[in-house]
């Protein structure tokens, strides 16, 4: 017998949270594809760094010095990220400002992304991972394959586009071509596509 002793932290994951802020930042910029148009590849490491700084500052209450040591950056950089003016950064990205503002651009974006996730309560929600076995049991593995094949396709989509992407698939013993024959077009979104396929099964 003895006390129950909890010696290790439970819950909360800085890496996961920083990843979420990073992806949300990319979304804010218009997606990964749009990022190429900016022709400024130095942004990605900078965004990753800013995502970590913003999470560490807001979620773990670490000092600038501690954050700088943990990430191997200077204290001043950490400070610039946390104090970046989001409004100015947005104006600059939207072309409203002629000159680049002094604010840390990636910092401004990461701060905005962090705030958005926080407001939506998405920052520290646990992600659920479904494995193949569970997908089989739930009979949804076909949905995952359909989503994988239509990734990057512009919606609304026509029958020809869908046949081109999904051709050859067999869902519950039925050819996808036959199923696609039965549904109405255009299909507005991936979710609608799954719904329409499901109704035919």
């Amino acid at each position, binding site marked *: 017998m003895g006390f129950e002793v909890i010696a290790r932290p439970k819950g909360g994951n800085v890496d996961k949270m920083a990843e979420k802020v990073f992806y949300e930042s990319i979304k804010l910029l218009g997606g990964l594809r749009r990022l190429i148009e900016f022709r400024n590849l130095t942004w990605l490491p900078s965004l990753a760094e800013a995502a970590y700084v913003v999470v560490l500052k807001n979620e*773990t209450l670490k000092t600038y010095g501690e954050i700088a040591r943990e990430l191997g950056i200077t204290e001043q950089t950490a400070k610039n990220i946390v104090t970046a003016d989001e409004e100015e950064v947005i104006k600059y990205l939207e072309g409203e400002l002629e000159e680049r503002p002094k604010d840390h651009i990636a910092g401004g974006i990461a701060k905005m992304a962090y705030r958005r996730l926080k407001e939506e309560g998405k920052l520290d929600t646990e992600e659920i991972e479904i494995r193949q076995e569970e997908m089989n049991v739930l009979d949804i593995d076909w949905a995952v394959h359909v989503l994988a094949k239509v990734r990057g396709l512009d919606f609304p989509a026509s029958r020809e586009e869908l046949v081109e992407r999904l051709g050859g698939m067999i869902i519950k013993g039925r050819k996808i071509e036959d199923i696609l024959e039965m549904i109405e077009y255009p299909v507005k979104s991936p979710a609608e596509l799954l719904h329409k396929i499901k109704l035919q099964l």
Partner: protein
Amino acid sequence: MYRYYELKELESRAPKLFGIPTGTKLDDMFFKIEKEGDRYVKKPLGGIPHLAVINLTGVPDTGKSLLAEQFAITQANAGYKVLYVTVESPANFLYTAMKQRSEAMGVDFSKVESNIVVIDASESDELRENPKALMETMAYAIKEKKVTNTVIDSITGLYEHKEVMARQIVRQFYNFMKRYRQTGVFVSQKRSAQASETAEAAGGLAVAHIVDGTIVLDKKLIESRWDVKLYGLPIGSVLRTIRIDGCRIAPHDPRTWVFEISEIGTIEITVPLDEFIRKSAEEQ
């Protein structure tokens, strides 16, 4: 979206006023006023107010941790679950101390040990340095173990090298205690520059201003002829005092009381200081 309440709406959610025993005379020092017939009667709460967060502060070796442990043991022995967050002393030392104290208090240690859950932040940098990680761990323990009382010994240890953040950190833990409906005790240390009898703790007045009430423990070294005459104690001895400095939840005895720490580390609050001095004058 901000909400506002009509005062009446809050009635059903307002906590009932009753005491959570500490196993010391402090239990008689918080009270409530009740109307009986035409008159108002003062009734002891029997403990610190339910759902209050009480700050125990004092210079080193005044008995803060002993009092916090005595509270935890009293509650655990009564069958209530206690979460003990140890920031200074490793869990195994805490175990030995509590075992001895339980024996001294005449309580069943097997009951105590099964009702106390310890988070050992003393040996985990992440728990000590990252308030969010600590609060998530506390939330886990509170939900899993159905904890109703929480002790943090010491809250100062969570911001000792970043005192500028004391207010922010204490506020977060205070709000946490409210959210999880805990009756709590925060132990906080004083810096040597702070007057020993005040409610001020390391990090400035942050702790005392945020929490619901503060209890100040103090010690006076008898070091002059004047002290010997006033207190009736031999030179070199120590006089310990305890005082409820303020409590926003329930009225309390405002006097300074004398207490003793027994050889086995239990706290015995004896008489008010003014009475102690008067008696010693009579005896002389």
